[in-house]
């Protein structure tokens, strides 16, 4: 039994279309789990079900073996950080942070101490007496985090907390969030649509699509070994081609070339996929070698550190990136080799 369990959660707003379809998710204590997916995939809905802001139509939600499905949001004791930060504009930073503690009727000196401690952890000691509108985006973000953490929540929920920050600050804040999260050892759920952000911060990632979890794994596993075509597409695989499994655990392309993959052979899966940067381009056209395919360059795009070539081949148009040490021209015939350990079957 995991610390947090979502069992067969179904959410639908009008009883016709399901926002979440029998969703199952287990989170271990102290883990930071990300929900990753495009907008409308149900990741925010999942988070709101966990928070208690949405009641699921079916299913159960447990934390620490307690069934919380019917427990209202204000009794769940979870800390939540919203995309808009949602600071109380009429209260100072200290008062914002103390809000949850005051509701718990804690003694004034205890509140004072806890607020000081969390402001120190989040690097806000100097700003306690200011109002939210006097703070920068990054500072507001810290206040929202401090306010959620000070109540010592059983769970920390973060709803796209970095999407309103500029790129530099986003990088700094995600390191900051990870540091605070592991320092306090608090179980966290992080919603994002940014895969880089999500991979760098998470212990585990749930990739969601249309209300279901397509894959729930460590970031490395998802990056290197996506299980479905959707996951592969979402994390940067751009080449997809049809493959037919052969009897000796290999694959045949539509033009009859044999492809091998070191990744697990699973029945029913017959699409090969590879990242553009993992395809190797060579000028010489060799025929009939395993894991190669020949074609003609149709489009060349300069990407900065490399060129991207759109190559028309018998198995479809493939994208391949190559550093600019050798530059090919549009119309050149090239051979693309697809390394067996980089070829994924989904």
């Amino acid at each position: 039994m995991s610390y947090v369990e979502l069992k067969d959660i179904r959410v639908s707003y009008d009883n016709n279309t399901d926002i979440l379809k029998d969703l199952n998710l287990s989170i271990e204590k102290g883990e930071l789990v990300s929900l990753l997916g495009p907008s409308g995939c149900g990741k925010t809905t999942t988070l709101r079900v966990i928070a208690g802001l949405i009641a699921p139509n079916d299913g159960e939600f447990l934390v620490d073996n307690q069934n919380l499905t019917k427990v209202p949001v204000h009794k769940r004791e979870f800390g939540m950080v919203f995309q808009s930060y949602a600071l109380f504009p009429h209260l100072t930073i200290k008062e914002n942070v103390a809000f949850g503690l005051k509701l718990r009727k804690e003694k004034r000196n205890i509140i004072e101490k806890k607020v000081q401690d969390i402001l120190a952890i989040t690097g806000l000691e100097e700003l306690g007496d200011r109002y939210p509108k006097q703070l920068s985006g990054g500072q507001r973000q810290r206040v929202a985090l401090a306010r959620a953490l000070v109540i010592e929540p059983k769970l920390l929920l973060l709803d796209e907390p970095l999407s309103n920050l500029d790129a530099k600050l986003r990088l700094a804040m995600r390191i900051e969030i990870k540091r605070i999260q592991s320092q306090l050892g608090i179980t966290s759920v992080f919603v994002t649509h940014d895969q880089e952000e999500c991979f760098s911060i998470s212990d585990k990632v749930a990739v969601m699509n249309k209300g279901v979890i397509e894959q729930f794994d460590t970031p490395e596993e998802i990056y290197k070994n996506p299980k479905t075509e959707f996951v592969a597409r979402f994390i940067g695989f751009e080449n997809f081609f049809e493959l037919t499994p052969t009897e000796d655990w290999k694959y045949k392309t539509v033009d009859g070339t044999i492809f091998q993959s070191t990744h697990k052979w699973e029945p029913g899966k017959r699409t090969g996929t590879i990242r553009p940067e993992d395809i190797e381009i060579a000028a010489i056209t060799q025929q009939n070698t395993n894991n190669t395919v020949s074609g003609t360059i149709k489009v060349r795009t300069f990407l900065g550190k490399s060129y991207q070539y759109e190559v028309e081949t018998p198995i479809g148009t493939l994208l391949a990136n190559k550093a600019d040490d050798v530059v090919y021209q549009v119309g050149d015939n090239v051979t693309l080799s697809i390394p067996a350990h980089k070829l994924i079957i989904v």
Partner: protein
Amino acid sequence: MRKNVSLKIFAGLVFAFLLVPLLIIIVTSFGTNSTIQFPIKGFTLEWYSKVFNNESFMDSFFLSLQVAFFATLLALIIGVPAAYSLARHRVFGRNWIKSFFLSPTIVPGLVVGYSMYQFIVIKYQFPIIQGLLLGHFLICLPYVIRVVGSTIEQLDFSIEEVSWTLGSTKLQAFIKVVLPNITSGIFASFMLAFINSFNNIPVSQFLSGPGVTMLPTSLMNYIEYNYDPSVSALSVILMLGTIVLMYVIEKTLGLASIS
């Protein structure tokens, strides 16, 4: 440049058209003539003392103040929660309810007054003061619901949600988080509703009865029989009151928040 000058002249004329009558009233209120005449022959404060010594003016003035105050208060007590739930919840027929609450500002005052007369006075025979309060409450309610409603709609709903996650019940969140952030809307709607109730003639006219007269009515009655400058003096006093109110609003909120 020439265009600018003619525009200035035009604007000046408009202002003159608006302000000169008011100036004339102010001037005549200090005149020694026994009827309202302009220009005045001499200077006196007699008419002001006459206003303050006129019992029917004073009585109706305080009655109007009280009715406006309590009607507006009642409208706030009922209107703020109503505006909140219209803004936040998926109320059935929400748009219909919204237009319904706008109706007293669209329907001519005379019609509103007459229909209130039909129900409040004739059908249910309310005592006069309660009837007046109820009538004025109905005039005030739309202003509260509209102004407070738009303030609530501009408020980030997630600050309420975050206060729930921090442990507050919905009522606590409303009191501790929503109310402090919509005070400008509440204050503005209070002023608007108060001024509208205070100035309202048709509803007051229909709902008042023997011995109970609201200020606009008593002013009209007075003019019918005495065309003396105490009416001007009373008008100046009312203008002063409004200016003071506006000054207070400007200092606390800024006039822009009302319009």
